[in-house]
């Protein structure tokens, strides 16, 4: 009988412990999973930071943190990671009373995109490991991986064509109200051009450089319609990379560029574009391009041609980057060229892809077509 009473008492104690932990076990527990950076470049190593803080006197035997990340965010330590459509990571943290456990896991951003955590769950148990306790934790942390920046060598052809076009139309007259930049004083510069503030700062004579009166604007069009029947993404990614790299190069040369795309934003599902043509933050443009979701069907490109090229009355240079070269696209280009629009069609193609490299187009389009060889394959 003693043993029976003893067992009953043990049972009561276990029940009390169980009820207490079921109610209070996961209370006053702060769990956060976030990326160490908001913006990263492809190939960058950033950190996924897991923070669990127990703000109560009751300890937990452990805390298991489970979360999913897209496959483009690759863990350097792949143990405890299962790969299916996403990476599923499971980590065990210690959780004493009034303690904070911080774990920093290094990850490599392999691909352009906007990434968030989906489904962060926390589980633990009571001290006697009888009852599993669990809860879901919200997280609004995200990382935007900017498009890959191509080297200047890869963009050489495109840059030469663009600059030659701009230079050919530049006049010798300068616009006194348009400042292109500041440079060092040269003997032929008039003294009224000297920027005294900048000279004081640098210690050398610096002069203002005015812009040309014929400062041309470039309109960049990004066509993200599929380029083959398999709906491959390889060249579309390259298209975005070319566009981003091209804009960066132009930005560094002080040339304003507006861009239009028929790709849709991953969050807003609106076409990604920046029509201002101001030399604004390139980082924001990088973010815009990074957020293009290629899984969403791109809008028809001819609508962009209609809306922005055919209706544009200025003498802008239109650079169209398009891996797609179907009949409708070419018909749109022909129409624009017939109306005297100044445009360049950049066709990205893989170095080993002879069918694209040897592709012939209509005689009207051919002089405006520039094939840009890129590394990789589908």
């Amino acid at each position, binding site marked *: 009988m003693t043993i029976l009473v*003893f067992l009953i008492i043990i049972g009561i104690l276990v029940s009390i412990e169980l009820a207490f932990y079921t109610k209070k076990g996961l209370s006053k527990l702060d769990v956060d999973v976030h990326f160490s950076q908001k913006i990263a470049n492809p190939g960058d190593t950033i950190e996924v930071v897991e923070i669990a803080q127990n703000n109560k006197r009751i300890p937990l035997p452990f805390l*298991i943190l489970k979360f999913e990340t897209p496959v483009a965010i690759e863990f350097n330590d792949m143990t*405890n990671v299962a790969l299916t459509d996403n990476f599923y990571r499971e980590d065990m943290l*210690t959780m004493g009373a009034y303690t904070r*456990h911080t774990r920093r896991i*290094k990850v490599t951003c392999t691909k352009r995109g906007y990434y968030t955590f989906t489904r962060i769950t926390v589980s633990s148990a009571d001290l006697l490991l009888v009852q599993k306790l669990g809860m879901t934790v919200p997280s609004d942390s995200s990382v935007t991986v900017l498009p890959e920046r191509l080297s200047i060598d890869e963009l050489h052809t495109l840059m030469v064509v663009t600059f030659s076009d701009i230079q050919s139309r530049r006049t010798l007259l300068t616009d006194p109200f348009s400042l292109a930049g500041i440079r060092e004083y040269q003997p032929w510069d008039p003294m009224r051009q000297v920027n005294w503030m900048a000279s004081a700062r640098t210690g050398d004579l610096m002069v203002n450089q005015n812009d040309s009166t014929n400062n041309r604007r470039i309109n960049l069009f990004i066509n993200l319609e599929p380029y083959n029947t398999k709906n491959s993404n390889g060249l579309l990614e390259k298209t975005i990379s070319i566009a981003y790299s091209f804009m960066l190069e132009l930005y560094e040369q002080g040339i304003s560029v507006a861009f239009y795309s028929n790709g849709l934003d991953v969050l807003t599902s609106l076409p990604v574009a920046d029509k201002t043509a101001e030399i604004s933050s390139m980082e924001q443009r990088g973010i815009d391009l990074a957020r293009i979701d290629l899984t969403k069907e791109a809008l028809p490109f001819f609508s962009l041609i209609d809306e922005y090229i055919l209706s544009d009355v200025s003498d802008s240079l239109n650079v169209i980057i398009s891996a797609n070269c179907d009949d409708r696209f070419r018909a749109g280009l022909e129409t624009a060229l017939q109306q005297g629009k100044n445009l360049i069609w950049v066709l990205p193609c893989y170095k080993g892809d002879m069918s694209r490299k040897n592709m012939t187009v209509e005689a009207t389009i051919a002089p405006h077509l520039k094939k840009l060889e890129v590394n990789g394959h589908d």
Partner: protein
Amino acid sequence: MTDVKLNERENNLLFDKSIIEICTSLLFFLTTFAICTYADVYVPNYEVPYWIMMSGAIPVVLSALVRQLNIPSFFKVIASFAFFVIYSIVFYPYFNVTIHLFVLVILDILNIVYAMLSIAKPISGRIKINGVLFAVLTNFLVKFALTYLMYDDREIDTTGLVINVFLAFFIYFVARQINEFEVGYYHSMRSSVLPVKEVSKQNRKTIVVVTIGFAVAIFCLWMLPWKFITNWLTYLIRLVMSKLLKQDDVITDDLDLNLMETGEEMIVEEEAVSNPWVYRFIWGTFGISIAAIFTILIVRAIMNEFGDKNNIRRQVVGSSDAVTDVIERVDRKPFLRRSANVFGTGYEMKIRKKFYKKVRKAISHGAEIKSSYTAKEITSAVDNLGKEQLGDLTKEYEKVRYK
């Protein structure tokens, strides 16, 4: 002998497995002890001192540890037997100890054979507590069998056997705790970069909870007049049964409940119980205080091992190229908020507390008060609500607050 270098994860696993093995072996030892207790009563001239019975734990534990070594099974068996042979030789001069040794060796052979068959070969293999369960079962079966076979009118002190059962349960719970953690949660954690030591230690700390639970249960058992309670329970069960079976007479054989038929006898019973209760209470309080002090000391020792020495608040517990772990201690809130100092002292405290309470009450009724409000603005906001009236209190508040 192969030289195997183990990582931290495997070392911990090995440690946990060793605990399980020791638990199993101790349970077999307890079984032996139980048999010896019976033998002490029923076998003439047995008279084995208790300390010899207890010393049987030494070869048992040593043998369990040897089984964890990375040596061929044959050597393990030889080594295990060697401990028992040495133990037997040491105690051979005690003639009556022979039976004790015989029982000990027989049961430990059973234990060794079981362990050899069931032990997981790879180090990374899962922990199994089948051995513990088997040992618990053996323990109870032996006790039941002996109780049944040797039942007669002879007086036998069962305290030792009851303690034996307590210990068996306790060992089982400890083994279960390690097993649940390892198999249920920790086994899926494969990463070598996890703070293995910290997590495992934290789990082992939960064994302290089991220990405290058992201590409380035993204390309750000791303190409560459980004979009285069980008699009452039995009486109630019989009463219910008789009602169900529609019997008029309640069977009260062998119960002391007849004492309750008259009030006079009840008083006698209560008096008989009261004195031991006082002693029990005093000794119980003393015992629990000692146990609490020891528990605190043990927990502190464990906490110190976690890196709290010299008041270290931040500790990097695991680091590699890919993962870094940092455990920090965060500020604790005091048990009691020292609100007295916030409101000052004496008359000032009285007025400010009163003002504060009224304002809080008004806020709960819906008064909109911003933290930037002055006392007069607060008063007008509260008065406008119409539920609370601050009136002259504001003047007094301003006097004591901005004196």
